[in-house]
């Protein structure tokens, strides 16, 4: 053993001083450091993001709220030369509001539209809240009875209600009519097509596949043109079909094809044992599908179904191209009014319409997330 080795000691002789406390691992500062400032790349990204926010948010707030004109009666109140600020011109929306909601529906009959909206809302809200009972009765009312009542209420001609041609319908009314009809028709039709596509019967399967792939392969706008210009040629000369109804047929068939593919996904996800179990119980085809397979399959694809609904709702704007004045179409028509032509009219109109469309679509997508989460906790 050398001297050096003998001098080595393994234990230290003095008490070590306290270490510096570690950087905070919790709290606001630590959060900022971890999520925004870890590493130079992160710092650059944070700065870029802040710049982007500064670029978009303050001008938007200034336009929509701070500099906006809230009251007025004509374009003079919104002209920068007269007023000096260039914010949103909300009086424009106020002046055009009834046009945007009802189109050219006779003003003394607005109550019919309002009543339809109220009825639809009153039936839809309890249908969407899971805690409220009587779902089956509610669904029958909404999907079966409500469309018929709404039809007679809006069209009139019975029970002393004056007849209102669909030609004068417009605005949000048309948007909602097209969307709700599409939703109510496309779901059952889509289910039938999906069952047809999975059927063992060759002719039914071929026809379903052809139908689905054809509609999915062409743009909706060609379908609407087909319904508007070609369909009348294929029907007997003395049949006249309402322009709105033709567009409705086009939209419904189109979304049914997309719905069919969503439902098919659900059907494929159901294990074979479920089919076999149902058959072993002696259930026929329709009972097996209705009682065992479809309830499970549809539950699985609720998010996909709602996504199709959102797509359908957005696609209703396309009826504008075949000269039906939906919400967006009315907005575009309102832009042409020289009494309200100011530099901010266009941006105001788009901001308002954007908020309305966002409200409906975002609401639907949030609801589908909610349902998805609810179902997934049930299964856990």
């Amino acid at each position: 053993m050398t001297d050096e080795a003998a001098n080595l000691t393994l234990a230290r002789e003095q008490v070590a001083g306290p270490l510096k406390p570690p950087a905070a691992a919790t709290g606001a500062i630590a959060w900022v450091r971890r999520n925004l400032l870890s590493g130079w790349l992160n710092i650059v990204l944070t700065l870029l993001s802040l710049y982007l926010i500064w670029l978009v948010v303050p001008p938007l707030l200034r336009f929509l709220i701070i500099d906006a004109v809230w009251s007025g009666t004509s374009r003079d109140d919104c002209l920068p030369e007269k007023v000096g600020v260039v914010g949103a011109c909300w009086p424009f929306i106020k002046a055009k509001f009834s046009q945007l909601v009802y189109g050219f529906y006779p003003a003394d009959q607005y109550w019919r539209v309002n009543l339809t909206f109220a009825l639809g809302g009153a039936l839809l809200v309890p249908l969407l809240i899971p805690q409220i009972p009587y779902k089956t009765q509610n669904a029958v009312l909404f999907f079966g009875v409500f469309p018929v009542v709404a039809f007679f209420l809006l069209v009139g001609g019975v029970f002393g209600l004056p007849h209102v041609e669909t030609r004068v319908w417009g605005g949000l009314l048309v948007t909602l009519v097209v969307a709700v009809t599409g939703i109510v028709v496309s779901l059952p039709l889509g289910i039938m097509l999906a069952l047809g596509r999975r059927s063992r019967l060759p002719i039914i399967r071929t026809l379903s596949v052809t139908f689905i792939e054809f509609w999915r392969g062409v743009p909706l706008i060609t379908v609407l043109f087909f319904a508007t210009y070609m369909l009348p040629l294929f029907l007997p000369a003395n049949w006249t079909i309402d322009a709105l109804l033709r567009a409705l047929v086009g939209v419904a068939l189109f979304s049914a094809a997309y719905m069919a593919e969503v439902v098919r996904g659900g059907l494929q996800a159901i294990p074979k044992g479920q089919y076999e179990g149902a058959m072993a119980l002696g259930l026929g085809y329709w009972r097996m599908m209705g009682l065992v397979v479809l309830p499970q399959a549809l539950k699985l694809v609720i998010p996909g179904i709602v996504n199709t609904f959102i797509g359908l709702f957005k696609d209703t704007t396309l009826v504008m191209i075949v000269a039906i004045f939906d919400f967006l179409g009315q907005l575009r028509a309102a832009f042409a009014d020289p009494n309200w032509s100011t530099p901010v009219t266009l941006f105001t109109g788009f901001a308002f319409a954007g908020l309305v469309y966002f409200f409906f679509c975002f609401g639907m997508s949030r609801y589908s997330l909610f349902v998805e989460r609810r179902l997934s906790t049930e299964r856990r």
Partner: protein
Amino acid sequence: MAESQPARVTFYNDPRLRGIFYQMLLLVVVLWLGYEFVINARDNLRAARIATGLAFLDYTAGFSINQTLIPYSEADTYGRVFLVGLLNTLLVAVIGIVLTTILGFIIGISRLSSNWLLQRIAGAYVELIRNLPLLFQILFWYLAVLGALPGPRQSISIFGEVFINNRGLFVPRPIFASGAELVLATFMVGIVLSLAIRAWARRRQEATGQQFPVFWTAVGLVVGLPLVASAATGFPISFEAPVLRGFNFAGGVRVIPEFVALLVALVTYTAAFIAEIVRAGLLAVPRGQTEAAYSLGLRPGLALRLVIIPQALRVIIPPLTSQYLNLTKNSSLAVAIGYPDLFAVFAGTVLNQTGQAIEIIAITMAVYLAISLATSLLMNWYNSRMALVER
């Protein structure tokens, strides 16, 4: 009694016979509908004195189109109009697909960024764009944004080469002098050579394990070769910048505002959907894959390129295909702002002028169907190459 006999059922309860009966019924109904359609169409057309057939394609169109990729004048035929429209559709679709893929991947990756702020901004973008109708966005870009641009005299200029005003986007035009063919040819040769070298390098690596710097060689070939050729022939390719003359720009290439609005709307809209697909694809790769790649000693870049992205692409490609198809189909919304795509000029103007509704709508639908089928075939082929090879 051990033999099991098939249960005896009356013929109307036999599932097989029932199936055949219902199918026959359906077939008869469909055929009858088809027959009625044909008969009605014939009677209606006869009553309206519309001649059927494709003869109208040879008639003179007599209207002008504000963007044509091939020479076209008012004296040309409807058949030529069809071609012009088809090329315009393909132009916006191809450029749109390239740009939307880039933007979509950037936003999708941003949504997974460790930077909280960036992640939230990307999320807000996706939610906002996905929940507004595309037609709304097209009209917004066209009427509100491009409509608010200044006139040619107050154009927004980018480096004095590119100008933006309410008449469109003005970019420099390349001018090819003699010798330019050689430059373009060497460019092509560079691409072909790079592909060949890549195949050779892969085979060598599989055989010997030696790597070859494929990327930098390819850059050298694709950029360097044409540069050398260009220097040798005295730089035959030059650019002519647009210049303000009087009230408008002369020279350069004018991109019509309709094209810009449609492209911006399609790209931003589709990118929101692609971002979600990319996010889902990257999340679908289990974390263990990343960890395993690191423990094999791969650096982060290589782990991403060799392990994570190939697996994520498998999830990404099928829905990405349908987004590409959606973009192509959605380009038909051009009709709302007057961009002369296939739908606007053919099913719009030509249909109005000739009244040949059946032929024109059938041709238009057939074209979109063909594009859809061709794209999905191409992507299926790519998908099958990328798919998991199982034992």
